[in-house]
């Protein structure tokens, strides 16, 4: 690239012209650039997946078939989940990690910057592969995000594209995880011992190990699906001596740690936000670290609680029920410690804190309904009903997504150099918090009354709660446009942010100027 086409300001290259500008983002190895790309991509996919949710809720607004045919409805539920998990939530937290982990541990960049670039750029292509299947004859995958055989083998032309997309998404996640681990283990500033690291770095370190253990298992499962479909193997085909239930075991060996891959970084963000706005150090830091590690370990041995109804031996049912319930202990430690951090703190309720406190209440509701579905005999009633939909949406939306919003508002001033519009932020929070409950709480009642999940039509007795849920979903979707406006407004200008930004903020990331310069900690700081 010609130097005449570049302005250099504070070490930050501003290429002139469209092509140099594109090439700057394509070839960047800077952790802040890559973090920004992850976050922008995740927000875009949040709206793509959200649009699919709107289609689902529009169809379910009243009984009968209104807008889409059942096959398209199934495509919506399948791709909504895949996009939200692999395209929105995971990349959002990877974006936070890219931006903040090097700043928090005093490193100049990620340990493997070119691998970092590749990790990101696999994502848009993988997502495109998945989304383009909507244009195929027969449409996109429609078997549910779990891709259970034998149903998934009826997918049609979209099948190999889905499998390849999942492989690429998994590869991207594994490379990102490797990079985060080696960065934290090798690039910490002098004096930054592991037990001095901020909780966000800790939760990401543990999450990254989970990703390395879980993502290859998903890749293995879908490779076996591919060979069953195209190469005559019978891993999961009963007619050839295979076992479809084995797919469920393998899938959920990935699938349950995946839940914690999604939620642990949100725990990390909340562990940064609550002490800042309580103006107290995090209560029980060491216990928080050990609780995170315990949750991660337990997540590897509870997978079959997703499939109690397949008919497993009593010993298996008991084992998976009890190990699942034990997860409530380290999770309870975390909820207690966040509450104890706020106890007698000088609390203020700026938008990040509002999202963090709402996370604490609403994630706990998702945790409690998780305990309910963990009870084997009760699960036979809840299984495949809307109760399960309500449960995991409480964990993922007011859990992971609220954690991401808390982090975005918390660090936006550090990223942009401007304070966001607090009034709009509070509007975004309150509308989101109200509508998320209007959307998902009635789904508990629907499930308990017997409404199955993944259906485009339903019996008339479910009409009222479905209508309420759909109204909530439309309100929730519209409220997210406020967030986009807040972010754009914050990038364009606003009150200048100080270096520390928040009165109670502590940590290395608050010692660098706002906005954070393109290159930070070239000379490592010393931690006392």
């Amino acid at each position, binding site marked *: 690239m010609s130097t005449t086409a570049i302005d250099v300001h504070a070490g930050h290259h501003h290429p002139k012209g469209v092509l140099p500008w594109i090439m700057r983002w394509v070839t960047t190895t800077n952790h802040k650039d890559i973090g920004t790309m992850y976050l922008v991509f995740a927000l875009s996919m949040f709206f793509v997946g959200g649009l699919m949710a709107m289609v689902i809720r529009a169809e379910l607004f009243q009984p009968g078939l209104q807008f889409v045919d059942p096959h398209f409805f199934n495509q919506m539920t399948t791709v909504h989940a895949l996009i939200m998990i692999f395209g929105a939530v995971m990349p959002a937290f990877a974006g936070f990690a890219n931006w903040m982990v090097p700043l928090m541990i005093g490193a100049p960049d990620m340990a493997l910057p070119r691998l970092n670039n590749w990790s990101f750029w696999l994502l848009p292509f993988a997502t495109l592969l998945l989304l383009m299947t909507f244009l195929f004859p027969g449409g996109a995958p429609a078997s549910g995000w779990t891709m259970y055989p034998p149903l998934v083998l009826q997918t049609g032309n979209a099948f190999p594209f889905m499998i390849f997309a999942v492989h690429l998404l998994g590869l991207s996640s594994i490379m990102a995880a*490797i*990079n985060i681990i080696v960065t934290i*283990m090798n*690039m910490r*500033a002098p004096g930054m011992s592991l037990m001095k690291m901020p909780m966000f770095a800790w939760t990401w370190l543990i999450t990254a190990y989970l990703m390395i253990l879980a993502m*290859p298992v998903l890749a293995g499962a879908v490779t076996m699906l591919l060979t069953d479909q195209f190469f005559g193997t019978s891993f999961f085909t009963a007619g050839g001596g295979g076992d479809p239930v084995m797919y469920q075991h393998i899938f959920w060996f990935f699938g349950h740690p995946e839940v914690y891959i999604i939620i642990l970084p949100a725990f990390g963000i909340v562990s940064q936000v609550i002490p800042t706005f309580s103006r107290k150090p995090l209560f029980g830091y060491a216990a928080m670290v050990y609780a995170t590690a315990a949750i991660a370990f337990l997540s590897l041995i509870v997978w079959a609680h997703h499939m109690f109804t397949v008919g497993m031996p009593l010993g298996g049912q008991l084992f998976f029920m009890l190990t699942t319930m034990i997860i409530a202990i380290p999770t309870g430690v975390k909820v207690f410690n966040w509450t104890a951090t706020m106890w007698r703190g000088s609390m203020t309720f700026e938008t990040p804190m509002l999202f963090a406190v709402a996370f604490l209440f609403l994630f706990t509701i998702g945790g409690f309904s998780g305990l309910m579905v963990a009870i084997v005999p009760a699960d036979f009633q809840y299984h495949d009903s809307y109760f399960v939909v309500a449960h995991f949406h409480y964990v993922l939306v007011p859990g992971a997504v609220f954690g991401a919003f808390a982090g975005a508002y918390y660090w936006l001033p550090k990223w942009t150099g401007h304070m966001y519009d607090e009034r709009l932020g509070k509007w975004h929070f309150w509308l989101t918090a109200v509508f998320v409950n209007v959307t998902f709480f009635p789904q508990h009642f629907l499930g308990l009354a017997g409404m199955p999940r993944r259906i485009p039509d339903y019996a008339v007795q479910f009409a009222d709660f479905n209508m309420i849920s759909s109204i909530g979903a439309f309100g929730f979707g519209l409220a997210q446009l406020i967030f986009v406006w807040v972010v754009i407004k914050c990038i364009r200008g606003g009150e200048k942010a100080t270096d520390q930004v928040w009165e109670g903020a502590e940590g290395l990331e608050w010692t660098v100027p706002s906005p954070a310069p393109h290159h930070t900690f070239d000379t490592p700081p010393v931690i006392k």
Partner: protein
Amino acid sequence: MSYAMAPANGSDERRDEGNDQRRARARRNALLLGLLAAGFYVGFILLGALKGIFPG
């Protein structure tokens, strides 16, 4: 050998040397983690080939 970076008051030469060592160690660690992931991938396909290894 410390896993942490050279201190801020160290010389440029010492810092560069530390950087090289650290990056080499990061590459070795990354390779090992990649092998672990590849092992899980191949291992689960091999397990899949052995029917009846899981309960149920």
